[in-house]
Each structure stands twice: as C-alpha cells, then as structure tokens.
C-alpha cells in the first residue's frame, strides 16, 4: 500500500529561483533563506520518498483563462520546466508518477472531486522555485512528481476548507493504491504578500506566525475563514496558503512540526516547514 510519510510547506517566490541560479547561498542577504531549506532537504534525502505530491499554482505560464481548472492533476510520464519569458532554467525534466496519478484521478472523481487532468503543461516557478532547494537534480531528480494545480489567481477560487477536503481525498486515494510507495506531500505558496495595486508590498508577520501555529494545532480556525479574511490578513496573493491547507488535509489529524523557518527580506516571506504525523514522530523518537 502507498503511504504518506510527511508534509512540507514552502513559499514559491520566483526570487528563490533567481537566488539559487545565481548561487547566492553565501550572500548574507540570502543565506537565511537557503538555510531554511536544509532540514527539509535532509529529511527528503533520508526518507527517499518515491513520489512527491505538490499542491502548486500556475502563474498564467502554462494555463490561460479561456479554460482555467479549479483543481487539476498532472497525469504524464514527465514534466518540463516552463519558460516564463526570461528563458528556461537549466533543470532536467522530472518524471511523473503516471500510474499513481491516473489512480488518483479515478479515485478523486469517484469520491465526488471532479478534478481535471493535464499533460503537456510545463511547470513554472510554482513548482520549480522551491524544488531544487528540496531535491538534488543532477543528473536526474531522485523522486517522481505528482503535481496538483490549484486555481489561486482567478476568482472564484476554492475556499480553504475545499482545499483541505481535497487533501483528505488525496490521502484516501493514495492509501488505496496497492503498490508500496512512499509519498511526501508539499504545499506551496505564501506566506503574507500582495503583488498588485497600491497595497503591493503588504506583509503581516504576526499573522504568518499565527498561521504557522494554527496550522499544526487548530487548522479548523483557518478552515473557518473566508478568502476575504485571508486577503485582509495576509494580502491578496497571501491567500494562496490554501495550498498549504490541501497539504494539511493529506496529513493525519495530529501532526508534529519538525522544522519551521521564516525569513522576510523584501516582498514575500520565505517560509519552510516540515511535518510528520504526531504518532509517527513519537515512534521515531522512541526508537532513538
């Protein structure tokens, strides 16, 4: 049986990719961002998941608004890196988890989650700004990717609760897959930021820290919020933390945070967090 071994939350700011490509890990202004990824990358290197499911959003790079899915799962043998206008970043394509993705689509639709499917849509910074900091990729990426796109750029967008329920349905689907695969779940986005209008540059660290607390201990409080609340507290684009809530839904009810970092430099905080089921984490501690 396939099983979920943990979850990672991460921002997906494009500047993470720029700093990575320019090797700014020793630049004092960027070092804290790079450092934040180390424990999550180490965990992935130790656990070696077969598949990484990533809840991400496209930024009108591959998908256009003439047909814009609320949720879409990538069912393909591999995924390319999108050229967002500044040239394609030099990463190899990442292989898809084709059979698990097809199974996921079948199970989700049967479970009343009428998800769209896609292939031939290269993935943009929604995936590839954080991924190289989490996984090695030369000559190849070590895990297969199962991307699930969420509409967080054109209203009506799904609510936080809907995303959480999607995560729960994804968990059921993965746990009904007969092959012994280990799966890590990544939720991307946020935290507080706004990239448009006179309110551009908005941040709210107090809310971000509260969000990270509630995420573990009382997600229901977040699920009760409307998108308007998330926009007010975290900025218009900060509402994309609903993709973290999808990841939360795919994790056990009780979780433990193994790592949490937060670094706000310019316009969007770089947040990285690592979670395991509380009971699994307790077992691991006992074993040591």
């Amino acid at each position: 049986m396939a099983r979920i071994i943990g979850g990672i939350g991460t921002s997906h700011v494009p500047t993470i990719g720029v700093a990575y490509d320019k090797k700014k890990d020793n630049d004092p202004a960027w070092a804290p961002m790079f450092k934040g990824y180390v424990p999550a990358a180490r965990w992935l290197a130790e656990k070696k998941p077969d598949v990484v499911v990533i809840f991400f959003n496209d930024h009108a790079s591959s998908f256009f608004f003439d047909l814009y899915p609320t949720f879409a799962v990538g069912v393909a043998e591999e995924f390319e890196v999108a050229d967002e206008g500044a040239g394609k970043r030099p990463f190899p394509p990442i292989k898809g988890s084709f059979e698990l993705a097809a199974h996921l689509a079948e199970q989700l639709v049967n479970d009343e989650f009428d998800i769209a499917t896609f292939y031939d849509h290269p993935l943009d910074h929604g995936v590839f700004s954080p991924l190289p900091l989490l996984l090695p990729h030369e000559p190849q990426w070590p895990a297969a990717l199962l991307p699930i796109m969420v509409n967080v750029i054109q209203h009506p967008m799904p609510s936080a609760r809907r995303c959480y329920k999607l995560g729960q349905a994804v968990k059921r689907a993965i746990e009904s897959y007969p092959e012994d695969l280990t799966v890590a779940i990544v939720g991307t986005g946020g935290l507080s930021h706004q990239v448009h209008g006179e309110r551009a540059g908005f941040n709210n660290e107090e809310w971000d820290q509260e969000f990270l607390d509630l995420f573990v201990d009382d997600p229901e409080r977040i699920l009760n919020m409307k998108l308007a609340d998330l926009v007010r507290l975290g900025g218009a684009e900060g509402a994309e933390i609903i993709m973290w809530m999808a990841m939360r839904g795919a994790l056990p009810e009780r979780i433990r945070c193994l790592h949490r970092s937060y670094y706000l430099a310019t316009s969007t905080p770089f947040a990285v967090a690592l979670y395991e089921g509380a009971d699994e984490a307790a077992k691991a501690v006992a074993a040591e």
Partner: protein
Amino acid sequence: MNPQLEGVEKLKGTYPFDVRKSYKARKLNRFLWNLRLPEYRAPFVADEAAACDAAGLSDYEKNLVLKRDWLAMIKYGVPMFLIEKIARVLKITNMQIYAIFRGESYEDFLKTRRVPSAA
C-alpha cells in the same frame, strides 16, 4: 457577489481578478500571455503599436501597454502574473512595478523593506 469575497471591497488598493474582468480583458490578457513566447516577443520589441493592433486591442488597451500604465491595467482586469510577462520583455523587475503601484520611487520603496540588499 462571490460569497468568499464579502468585505474585500473595503480593502484599499486591492483589486481581485475574477471571471468578469478576465472576460472583459481577454484580448489584452492573451496578448500579454503570448509574450512568454519568443515568436511574439520579437515583433513586439520591433514595433509595439503594430503588435497591439495585430492582437486586436482596443485603443484603451493599446494605450495601457504603450504608456506602461500598470496600475490602470490591474484595475481594468490584468492580473499581475500577466504584467510579469511583459515586464520580463522590458527588463523591469517586479519590485520596480510594486513601487510604481504604490506611487513611490524605487529607492523609497526599498527603504520600507527589511533587507533592501536582497532586492
């Protein structure tokens, strides 16, 4: 009214992009979207106005492009993620555009940031 967005109109300087705006601005948005492809970038760089005309933009839309009126684009119905596409062609950074949205010089905007040297 989108039930999820009740009350959002009280927030100043915030213009949620929705299906109504998306349809109204579809020609302009597709024009900007296409700029991520080299075959559209080259004619745009060669003759911006002709590229706007070829895309069937209205005079108003064409002016938004030629005058680089980013804030008016947002209000009209262009999401920031499509402004990004033209910004990459024009070699303008997102941070520079945020300053323009706020009506500040880039230097003044950077002073409001915690780590300006990361910009």
